[in-house]
């Protein structure tokens, strides 16, 4: 089996609202996948279920042969849309924390990226701006040699100049076997790095295709197709 992630009939309800409805997906290894959809379409919910932060109402999800749990957490590197850094820590301390808990964490890589982005390891996280904290989180997540990267809005809060560096970082820091799933609505910015796209609408998958197929079949960019599918 070559898929890193597969889910069958996955549903999640919050009270009476359905955030995900019968989602069926197969995601192959070695791909960069854009999980695209408007706000509230279920992108974050899906990613959180993959990380066992939310419990599905029904259905099943398998990552690398396991249900979400300790085994999947060893191979999944997750960037949440929230800031989860402890303000009282220094950048170097949070790096040590990751090194302590993740066997696949590469601190050299982390320090290298920090210096590229001019972030001092001895700074306290409290003193960093919101955008800089997001960069630190992304560096932590991309410094792992994981099999699956789940990036929830990785470029939402950073300036356009840093965006390019971050996208390069994502491209450079994952190996051939690993898959990156990133959710965003800033499609134009990331379109060039995507292999596949998944369109989510009201908790349902409306389209799963390779970017090449979209271009050859419709002659449109992903951005243009997105605007068409999700026209308000």
């Amino acid at each position, binding site marked *: 089996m070559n898929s890193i992630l597969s889910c069958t009939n996955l549903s999640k309800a919050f009270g009476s609202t359905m955030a995900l409805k019968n989602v069926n997906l197969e995601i192959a290894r070695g791909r960069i996948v854009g999980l695209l959809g408007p706000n509230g379409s279920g992108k974050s919910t899906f990613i959180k279920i993959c990380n066992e932060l939310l419990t599905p109402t029904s259905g099943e999800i398998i990552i690398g042969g396991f249900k979400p749990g*300790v085994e999947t957490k060893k191979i*999944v590197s997750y960037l949440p849309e929230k800031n*989860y850094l402890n303000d009282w820590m220094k950048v170097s301390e949070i790096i040590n924390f990751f090194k302590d*808990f*993740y066997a696949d964490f590469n601190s050299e890589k982390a320090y290298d990226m920090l210096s590229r982005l001019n972030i001092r390891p001895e700074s306290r996280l409290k003193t960093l701006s919101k955008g800089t904290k997001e960069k630190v989180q992304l560096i932590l997540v991309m410094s792992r040699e994981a099999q699956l990267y789940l990036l929830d809005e990785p470029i939402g809060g950073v300036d356009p100049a840093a965006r390019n560096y971050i996208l390069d970082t994502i491209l450079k820091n994952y190996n051939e076997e690993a898959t990156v799933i990133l959710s965003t609505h800033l499609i134009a910015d990331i379109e060039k790095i995507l292999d596949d796209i998944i369109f989510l609408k009201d908790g349902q998958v409306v389209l799963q295709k390779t970017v090449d197929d979209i271009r050859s079949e419709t002659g449109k960019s992903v951005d243009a197709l997105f605007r068409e599918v999700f026209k308000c």
Partner: protein
Amino acid sequence: MLGKLMKYEIKATARWFLPLYTVILVIAAISRLLFGDPLMMESSGFTFRKAISILVILAYVILVVGVMIVTLVVCIIRFYKSLLGDEGYLMFTLPVQTWKHITGKLLIAVLWNFLSGLFACLSIFIIIPSPELLKIRQAFAAEFSQFFNFGSYCILSAVVIVSLVFSILQIYAAIALGHLFNKHRLLASFGMYIAINTVCQYVTWMVTPLLVGSVMKFDGNLELIVKPVSQTFILFTVVAAILSAGCFVLTNILLKKNLNLE
């Protein structure tokens, strides 16, 4: 992994407790220097010095009670924020079993409660000079030594440890239950705590008729009361340990199977 979690938990909480302990010791030292020994006062008559001494003792008691409350509150906040707040995104995506998170938090909470108690005692030694304290201890020992043997110290320690673990785990379970609600989770946790605590109190009180019965018959003869008291304590410890295990299992199931971080 449990060791690493605990190491990290100590780092995260020490920045609250170390300053707190420093404050207790400094306040104790200052009051000793300013007002001398509060126990050394003239036996009769109201003097200014006596009034001050009483105030010092009163302020000190409030301080010690405050320290114990702060200790408990910090432990509760840590559990809530680091597992169910935004930091939960970090903690629950670590490749660590849920029960290790709970155990780590619990052990460190127990540690700080002990240290807070220890520092409270230490500060008594600072406020009251040791010869005086020794006299009190000797008087106490003379009265009780015949009933206090190694066994009763063991029972007492067990009661203290189990009660502490029990009260912390009740709070953890309440927070985990409150988390099941979609809205007003903090309020729900308070409600759940009242519910859990009521049930637990009811169950633990059922073991006490033994004690009540002998206290009713108490006629000043300590010897008669020692046996039923220690039996009650042992029974209480066993019941509290079972209920604690129940709270732990409940918390673990809820955080593992029903985690819903917003």
